[in-house]
């Protein structure tokens, strides 16, 4: 199976990833240069609504959230490369950003 790419993620195509990995990546919406992983409620709210040409590198987390079609306050945790960060944290190329709500399920 050929991995399907999330919108705007062509530059991050990984031909060597396994089917499971690609399926996992397929669930994500990516901005150029910064991989964004919306979770739970945030993921449901962003499904199919991610901006096509969003370059998040150089933005603060607060600025990124304002560019997404979602109420920023729904995102409880912003985790960049495995670390919880504050809203004034500035994003860099190749950052992996998880947007986690306070409720993943309900």
């Amino acid at each position, binding site marked *: 199976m050929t991995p399907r790419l999330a919108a705007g993620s062509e530059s991050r195509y990984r031909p060597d990833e396994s089917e499971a990995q690609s399926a996992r990546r397929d669930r994500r919406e990516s901005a150029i240069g910064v991989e964004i992983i919306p979770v739970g*409620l945030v993921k449901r709210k962003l499904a199919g609504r991610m901006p096509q040409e969003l370059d998040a590198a150089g933005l603060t987390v607060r600025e990124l959230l304002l560019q997404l079609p979602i109420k920023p306050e729904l995102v409880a945790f912003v985790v960049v490369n495995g670390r919880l960060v504050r809203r004034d944290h500035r994003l860099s190329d190749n950052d992996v950003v998880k947007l986690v709500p*306070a*409720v993943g399920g309900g």
Partner: protein
Amino acid sequence: MFGYAGRVLRIDLTRRVTTTEPYDPEIARRFLGGRGFSAYTLYTEVPTGADPLGPDNKVIVSTGPLSGTLVPGAGKTDITTKSPETGGYASASVGGLLCAELKYAGYDAIIVEGISQSPVYLFIDDDLVELRDASHLWGKGSLTVEEQLKTELGEAFQIASVGPAAENLVSYACITHDFGRQAGRGGVGTVLGAKKLKAIAVRGSKSIPIADVETFRTLSRAMFKACMESDAAEVWQKYGTAGVVSWANEIGALPTRNFQSGFFEKCDSLSGEVMRDSIVVSDKACFACPCPCGKYSHTEKHGVFVEGPEYETTALLGANCAIADIEDVAYANYLCDELGLDTISTGNCVAFAIECFEKGIISSADTGGLELSFGDSAAIFKLIGMIAAREGIGELLASGVKHAAEVLGGKAADLAVQVKGMEMSGYESRSAPAMLLSYMTCDVGAHHNRSWAITYDLEVGRDKISADKAAKVIELQHIRPLFDVLGACRLQWVELGLSLEHYAPVLQALTGQDRSWDDLMRISERVWNLTRSYWIRETAGFGRDWDSPPPRTWKEPVATGPTKGSSVSWEDNQRLLDMYYQQRGWDENGIPTPAKLAELELTDIVG
């Protein structure tokens, strides 16, 4: 009975008699287990008007069918009693390993009744059940007792214990287990203290019968895998609920200075990141949990270890008391754990006293010379000790803010942040009407865990007063407490996004009984209406007045922060309450109608 140990252990402390009886399959059919079993037992066995601290009251320690199994998070025990704090229904859930060990010893539940003449602890080693002298443990802290009993009996024993606050009948004393997990709210520990039951020690070696072992194993593994692969797992494992502190502050929900505000200007020093980097020494999980949300911490400043502080403790003992040093919050947490105090109610009582002091309602003459001010950690540590010992001003605060306000009179009632006599947990709700409704209608008092609707407020509009908000609160009040019926933790669903569709099939594989998700929700609604009926039976004139929000929420706008100026007017909170009652099938005074009770098969119990 597949999924059950099949026996109930009954402890009569007055006569010092222990007996076992079969777990009634009819009760299992109607109430399943956990909080369902204990609500039924409370309603049917504890006589109307029983003194919460007297021999007629009972403490029911109840596991659910999932408890002690392979299902992720299957480590929850419900502890139910008539509350000495509210006079109504109290039910608190504790994690750890207690439920698993109890079930392996061959018991689904323990019913504790009567009063011992001298301090005892309950010793359970499979079929060997004894009441043992606890005079050497009396007066000691919860954590100390746990360590001592493990030394005396062996590490394999699981211990639940109470501290000096319970012995002194502080109305919000908790039960501690696994060095930092608590059945915290409503004074469940107080009732054990009144009964002079200092601790429960249990070890078991039996197994739980499973109807379809292969299917159960397959489904449980799939649930585990889904939890481990959740994109949210990483953050919850690393920071636990403390990770939410900064967010709560940013949205103006972090209770600050006795709920005068939802924004603490020094919150940065209490954040989950700061806590992780400065005091956390290890992660800690409950039985069968893939997500160790517990954080075991060490404060060098105070020289103690403590599990926590988790979100609620940081909110109530931190921001709500304006303590900005995470090590001081950890120490206040330790004091409460060792003394056996619920951190949520204690944080409220301390903050209430400070605000009363600052506004001249009490003075240093009342506090024995102790000067109280927000942010004064040393004075707050001292006050916590005074509450546990009922010493000086601690006597006034030992029965909770509602009682203290009634004694003080005047404007003190406006500073008491409580519903039904229980202090409010950690979400300032003046710009979150659904969350406020959750507090107003929660079946134990102002607690968040039955319905945590603040995200729904954010999602659909914080100022909106609408029928869908009432519907959401009801939906959550059926789903979330269902986990306490099943004997499992809700975090796997709430935070890791584990689909609810897993639960009915895995329960069916375990018990062999065909139950749909709708069946489970109906059981949860049945329990909700039974606990409502308990309040009605036990409280003269019970009705919608008991669902009133704290005065501060409608009389006084938020003082500072992003929600500054907001409040939910009396008219709006009553409008929401009307919608809630109507959707629940209750009358305008909040009483379940005969038709609703009949629909839920409760008529023969409630009448």
